């Protein structure tokens, strides 16, 4: 499974990529593979204030529905509208075109509480 080293991770299989004063959020390659064909994404409203760990979006595969949690507290400032027409982007490019929403964190320092690629790798190994 691909785990890019340029970003942070959660135990619930989200990734968080800092870009300026915002953070892009998506799900990992492992998560998209486990879900299977993604067929629908319920996106949050722009402007919504979220707590760390709050369910912000829902990714539905043929098999099941899965909550996507905010990796840090903050405000949703953008959503990936392309997922409304092409939810399969999450399967095809989970770390790029398949991003789900962008958060402006209340405090950028909160990212330090997240896992790095090596830490996430350990999570996957402990689940296997």
């Amino acid at each position, binding site marked *: 499974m691909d785990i890019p080293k340029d970003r942070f991770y959660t135990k619930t299989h989200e990734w968080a990529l800092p870009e300026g004063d915002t953070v892009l959020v998506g799900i990992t390659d492992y998560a998209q593979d486990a879900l299977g*064909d993604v067929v629908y994404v319920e996106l949050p409203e722009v402007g919504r204030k979220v707590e760390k760990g709050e369910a912000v979006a829902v990714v539905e595969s043929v*098999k099941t529905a899965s909550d996507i949690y905010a990796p840090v507290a903050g405000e949703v400032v953008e959503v990936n509208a392309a997922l409304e027409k092409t939810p399969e982007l999450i399967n095809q490019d989970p770390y790029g075109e398949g991003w789900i929403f962008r958060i402006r964190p209340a405090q950028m320092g909160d990212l330090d509480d997240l896992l790095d690629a090596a830490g996430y790798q350990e999570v996957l190994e402990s689940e296997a």
Partner: protein
Amino acid sequence: MKKTPLYEAHLRHGGRMVEFAGYALPVQYTSIREEHLSVRRGAGLFDVSHMGEFLIRGPEALAFLQWATANDAAKLKVGRAQYSMLPNARGGVVDDIYLYRLAEEEYLMVVNAANIAKDLAHLQGLARGFQVELADVSEATALLALQGPKAAELLQGLTDTDLATKRKNDVWQAKVVGKPARLARTGYTGEDGFELFLAPEDAEAVFAALVEAGATPCGLGARDTLRLEAGFPLYGHELTDATNPLCTPWAWVVKREKPFFGKEAMLASTCRERLIGLVLEAGIPREGYPVRSGEERVGRVTSGGYSPLLEKGIALAYVEEGASEPFYVEVRGKPVGASLSPLPFVPLK
């Protein structure tokens, strides 16, 4: 967990194994959507060895089956099959089944894997007083389903039967890649196709030959989306011990002109609910989601999922008798518009 004779083959093909009715079976190999579409457009191959099989033999086999099943078993000629149900004493459904007449006094009943023990006990109870022999041959039977518009063409290259002479619901003895097989032109996908009853030791060779010939291995995920799109019931969801089949789209199975066990109770009860098909404007309905008519909750989804052909969420749902449009399905608490759909959800041959 029990393994089917194809367990190793599933692992070799990258099957994602899950537990289903006590068996380890693949939910998918590559993608449920791709596997689904392979059955709608080509030929897909399923291991359904978990299904139960009972042999029913004896001079009163027909009389017994007429009593135990809701459809008219007397209509079955040797070499023919029919969909049927086992009614209970309250007019509910013990199981939905497929019945094959193999010989004058010999029938094969295929039952749901989760119901094998329940069905057997029920049938043994009813068999008292009939000159009939009931044998559970589930463990000695491997079952493959080859389904899709290209199924016949693909199978023709591997069998000695001229498949052009066989119709839907025919059952016959044949050879497939030299292995003895009981073939039936039946299935659970809404497509043309075949089911192959095999000795467990022959299952791998036949599975491998069919894949080699171009069949796409398909898992339980696609089996479920295909049957849902085709508007077929799944026991435990649309049909249960408490479901009166006369209140379902499968009421045609019940033949009122003949006596059968549970008939009086079934005819006496009135329908308080009916089963409908719904297509959602957005999102994916799942089992248990409430259904509303306007503001009022009138029912629940019994099977829901994604239709790869419609590219929409679809559901089978029970709603109160008399409930009318506009319908909504509550998806995570939010009402989503849902339009009534005829069954099947997609046009099928």
